[in-house]
């Protein structure tokens, strides 16, 4: 089975700063790390390869520093990696990102399964997986908590959809987005880290892919972030109840009574 895993580098911490004018993330001094859900996607891919054979290819779009994250993924057991990096990709929202990733997957060719994390923890959208599936006109199983290979190019996927759990039979090629519940990602052993340095990591720019220029970067991104601000918790009256616990309890119950809550 030829498996592509799309991974994203996200800020190492969620305590982030924004440029007040451009509204862009201030990246300086911020070590990146792999989006945690993408570790689950890689683990799922490596386990499938262990069960049915094949290869695991990582794919990420981002700045040059993303190579570190790709190396981490190779150390987790992936066989090869592609970095999509170009000025023309800057400013891509989920729609443009999904389009570019889909074009790269076409170029890689012969891909049976594309895996994603359930969502990236920076903006928490979870949109890129379904967008890629739509671009490639593939079926999808989102929010997967279990993935089991079946005979004849099929997968059984358990989807945890909140109120319900659904098991679907998916015919490959297909797209799956992976929940943290699916597995526990393995640690990178020193040997695996050593080996990862010799695995192929290829960089593609916009020149290496077949792309419609109006669909990438800012031009291909319908959404505009027009303001970034710190959330201000709404303040309320904060009326103090009497100091003595018994008196406070009595006052509290009186309030509930008055509001019809008893």
């Amino acid at each position, binding site marked *: 089975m030829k498996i592509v895993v799309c991974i994203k580098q996200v800020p190492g911490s969620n305590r982030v700063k924004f440029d007040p004018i451009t509204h862009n993330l201030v990246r300086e001094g911020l070590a990146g790390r792999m989006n945690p859900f993408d570790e689950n996607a890689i683990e799922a891919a490596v386990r499938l390869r262990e069960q049915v054979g094949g290869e695991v290819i990582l794919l990420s779009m981002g700045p040059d520093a993303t190579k570190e994250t790709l190396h981490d993924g190779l150390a987790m057991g992936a066989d090869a990696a592609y970095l999509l990096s170009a000025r023309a990709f800057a400013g891509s929202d989920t729609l443009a990102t999904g389009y570019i990733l889909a074009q790269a997957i076409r170029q890689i060719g012969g891909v049976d399964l594309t895996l994603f994390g359930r969502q990236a923890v*920076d903006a*928490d959208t979870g949109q890129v997986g379904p967008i890629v599936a739509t671009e490639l006109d593939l079926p999808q199983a989102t929010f997967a908590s279990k993935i089991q290979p079946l005979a004849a190019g099929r997968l059984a996927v358990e*989807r945890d959809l909140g109120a319900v759990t659904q*098991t679907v039979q998916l015919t490959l090629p297909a797209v799956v987005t992976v929940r943290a519940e699916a597995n526990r990602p393995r640690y990178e052993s020193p040997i695996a880290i050593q080996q990862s340095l010799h695995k192929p990591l290829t960089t593609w720019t916009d020149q290496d892919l077949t792309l419609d220029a109006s669909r990438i970067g800012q031009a291909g991104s319908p959404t505009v972030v027009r303001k970034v601000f710190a959330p201000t918790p709404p303040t309320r009256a904060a009326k103090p109840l009497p100091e003595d616990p018994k008196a406070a309890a009595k006052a509290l119950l009186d309030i509930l009574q008055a509001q019809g809550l008893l």
Partner: protein
Amino acid sequence: MISKEGLWIVAEFEGTRIAPVTLQLLTKARAIAGSRPVAAVLMETPEADGEETLAQYGPDEIIVLQAEGFKDASDRALAAQLTQLIQAHQPNAVLFGATPAGRSLAPRVQDQLATGLTADCLDFYYEENELVQVKPSYGDNVMCEIVCPDRRPQMASVRPNTFAAQKAQGAARIERVPVSLTPDDSCVVQHTALKIAATTSLSGARKIIALGRGANKDAVVAGARQLAEKLGASVGVSRPLTDRPDFTAEQQIGQSGVTVSPDLILNLGVSGAVQYQVGMSGSKLVISANRDPKAPIMAQSDYTWTGDAGALVAALQELL
């Protein structure tokens, strides 16, 4: 005739009933729509009847698509139906619940329409014809205002339990749209299991006693459970308490847990971190007890009590 330039809500079922988030969205949509018609889009099997519930929340139109195949339809098949409908009637905006189902369907529709989609909004409002979408990022540490200036429809998914649903008067016009659903053999549902009875889930609770690290003692937890039973309340927790064997993530209130909007929340020993606060800011009456009068939760409360959470629980138990 389905109106043009409408504000559409894509209705969702939870089991056999309409999901609460759909009704919450309808209420909010009516409040901001101005002169735009508000429509609910319902994709259902012929034996379901979501129209009756939807009509009680005051949409101007209910657009009904019925087909046997909507039971267990794949995301791809549902997205194709919705895309067709949107292309034919060109609504101004289309909103989804940010539930797993909504989050799976919306981006497929977005891609086919080549328009913008903002995920997991906490608020939205119109400025002229532009829908301003307010969404959190980086673990709710920042908020962003996002717009989609040049393309239509404007699309967003909205976090459940962010708005309160309110019944409204009005006679919804029902528009039935014929459908021909092609079965999608590439994704076939084998089995569906209902996980939790929706009525016992925290997200729908009308009264909640919430316990934080300052209430993390067996005696206090037991006392709070007794109080909850007497008050008819559910028990929720902040994240640190999910490490206890008697609580799970299902009871966690907050950004990475459940969003709640009860009539009453009583916070005991919760500090009020931003990730907790966004999960409960929609509560009607907020009462908080904390040893520290400067704890952030206090400014987010209607009534406060400074002192030991265990002492207040004991005093309440004596009176009830």
